[in-house]
């Protein structure tokens, strides 16, 4: 009952005009930054940090929370419209979302994406509000072996997604994981595969690989084919998806939200594994799973819901324990500490009204996000009316700025160009590039979770199976592989017996 009282107080604070405007501006900044492949919303948050010095801590958190929620969604706008994920977590949105765009249903895809994201974010914000305390102590049971197991689950769901070509998918994933090992290793501080070049010691960032593989290849295809991405006239005057369409994917949205909420709590996991695992699971569960990748609504809705469901969940360890699980939440922590507020168990006792204002802001931000998302998408679809040649030129420039902006290093631009050429060739010969990107993202995580787990258990390799939570996750991962490979195995056995 006390929670309700506090949250009502929180809503009152948010609905003051200044607070409300702060959330809205934050959302718009986030959606735009997320949608541009050139700017990551994490960078937008870092740049917004100095502006928060002048605000009080509540407004600072409203602003950053707005950017966070908006940014996680924003990446899907460019993923759906031009097949270039604005943020890594929007990668799954390119699979079915862009397929819908090619069918001329760009507005419908965007509406489903923004609705799914908002619902996922809202469920997660409600969980943050009402279940923070029990989930916080649950999160503390997680240690490095559990993180490793969760990463393995993410890796195997990549195989499940592309079950028709398991060998090629594995190879693509492993190439990505090998690329992820380039540079200074996480434990020993030693450079690997640097060939004596100092720039390579800094490693190859997944965002750079992703921009190269997706954006450059896509631009070349855009000019080399006579593709037209403009919304088809036949789509009609409607804003996009009807209420009926949304109801049709409610199962996918709820499943994605649930998975996102659970994965988001794990510090370090975050939106990308959340979205990928949700897509993999949905592909198995959904009755139209076999058609995924051709523009199926459920295949878009589930990962969209999951990635925004990680936003509220990721704030649970931040606010209750003071542990930031990602760069975005680390910036929020920094903002709070610069204001002299130390998140942790004491915060709930000492300043509950501020905590609940943040909760209320997360709830409101997710609802307002529908408006901000649709608004920014309108601007983007207006920009999409420019001739494809000009559009392509600007995508190239934004992509290279994006690669450069990852850490303001020209070397990353060269890396991006190399992967651009590789990505184009891979696309032409039909070699899947998404597993490669996920390998670059998840590989380094798996490595350091594995090595730290082993070091923390006195070189005991059984730790992954002997710990109950980690063992269970690995068991689920194994089942997941069998479950997703079974249909194709059965089909082949059936065909062989029929032939003989």
């Amino acid at each position, binding site marked *: 009952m006390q929670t309700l009282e506090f949250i009502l107080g929180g809503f009152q604070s948010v609905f003051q005009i200044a607070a409300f405007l702060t959330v809205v501006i934050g959302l718009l900044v986030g959606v735009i930054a997320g949608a541009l492949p050139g700017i990551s919303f994490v960078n937008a948050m870092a*740049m917004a940090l100095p502006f928060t010095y002048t605000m009080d801590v509540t407004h600072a958190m409203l602003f950053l929370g707005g950017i966070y929620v908006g940014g996680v969604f924003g990446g899907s706008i460019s993923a759906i419209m031009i097949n270039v994920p604005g943020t890594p977590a929007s990668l799954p949105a390119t699979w079915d979302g862009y397929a819908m765009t090619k069918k001329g249903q760009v507005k419908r895809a965007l509406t489903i994406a923004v609705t799914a994201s908002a619902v996922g974010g809202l469920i997660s914000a409600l969980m943050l509000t009402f279940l923070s305390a029990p989930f916080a102590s649950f999160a503390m049971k997680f240690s490095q072996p559990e993180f490793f197991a969760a990463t393995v689950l993410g890796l195997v769901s990549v195989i499940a997604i592309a079950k028709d070509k398991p060998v090629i998918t594995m*190879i693509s994933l492993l190439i990505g994981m090998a690329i992820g090992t380039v540079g200074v290793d996480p434990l020993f501080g030693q*450079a690997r595969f640097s060939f004596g070049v100092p720039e390579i010691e800094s490693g190859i960032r997944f965002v750079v690989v992703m921009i190269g593989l997706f954006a450059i290849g896509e631009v070349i295809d855009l*000019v*080399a084919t006579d593709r037209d991405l403009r919304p088809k006239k036949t789509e009609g005057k409607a804003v996009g998806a009807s209420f009926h369409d949304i109801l049709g994917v409610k199962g996918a949205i709820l499943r994605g939200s649930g998975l996102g909420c659970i994965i988001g709590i794990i510090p370090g996991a975050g939106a990308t594994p959340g979205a990928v695992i949700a897509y993999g699971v949905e592909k198995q569960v959904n009755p139209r799973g076999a058609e995924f990748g051709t523009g199926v609504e459920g295949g878009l809705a589930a990962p969209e819901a999951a990635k925004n469901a990680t936003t509220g969940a990721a704030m649970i360890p931040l606010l209750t324990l003071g542990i930031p699980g990602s760069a975005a939440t680390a910036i929020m922590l920094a903002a709070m500490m610069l204001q002299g507020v130390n998140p942790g168990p004491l915060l709930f006792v000492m300043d509950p009204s501020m905590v609940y204002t943040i909760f209320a802001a997360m709830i409101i931000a997710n609802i307002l996000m529908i408006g901000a998302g649709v608004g920014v998408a309108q601007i983007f679809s207006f920009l999409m009316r420019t001739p494809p*040649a000009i559009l392509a030129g600007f995508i190239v420039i934004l992509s290279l700025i994006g690669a450069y902006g990852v850490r303001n290093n020209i070397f990353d*631009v060269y890396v991006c160009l190399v992967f651009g050429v590789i990505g184009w060739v891979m696309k032409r010969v039909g070699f899947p590039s998404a597993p490669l990107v996920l390998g670059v993202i998840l590989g380094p995580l798996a490595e350091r979770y594995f090595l730290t787990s082993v070091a923390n258990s006195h070189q005991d390799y059984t730790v992954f199976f002997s710990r109950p939570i980690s063992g269970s996750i690995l068991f689920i991962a194994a089942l997941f592989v069998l479950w997703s490979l079974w249909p194709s195995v059965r089909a*082949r056995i059936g065909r062989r017996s029929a032939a003989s």
Partner: protein
Amino acid sequence: MTDSYADGAPERDSQSNTSENQQGEGITARLIPVLVPALLLLASLILPGFMFHAGQRGSLPGLGPGAWPGAVLAALAVFSAIWLAIEIWGFAKSRKSASLSAPHDEDVYHYGKAIIGIVLVIAFGWLLPVLGFPLATMLFLFIWCLYGGLRNPLVMLLVPGIGTVALLWVFMGLALMPLSRGMGPFEGFTIALLQLIGIY
């Protein structure tokens, strides 16, 4: 795609959809699908030897920094070998790639135009640190518009001009990113330009 392992024939139509594929039906084109896994296998066997440039440092606790990349490359070698076996088997049986197939959702694909586009993009990236962001971008946008088939002189002037200034404002003015100013005389030019449009 599952079918392609057992029976390659139904895929043949979609394979020859692009014009280049039709011309490239020589023995080399058919060997490429075998060559790729072979090269991957070779790379994953050779690369572990190049892991540390200056040698590994002294005695290290635990598994050391080489264990994980070693394991990943070993797994890559195993799967490349499997892929190679599938390809050789498929090649012997039906003279076509068993597992790779080009996307066939496009009716036309201008390979020449694609190659020129790639060269332009690489040239842009290469010239960025030399000419500085503003000059390189203006030049790139101008040539890209030409390449994209635009001939209207007003558009050719306005798109690179306004586009570059807008990008400069967003990224250097608003987002405060330290984009390249170029080398030598070009740096002076960039700084003058930035001062002219009020960013510096």
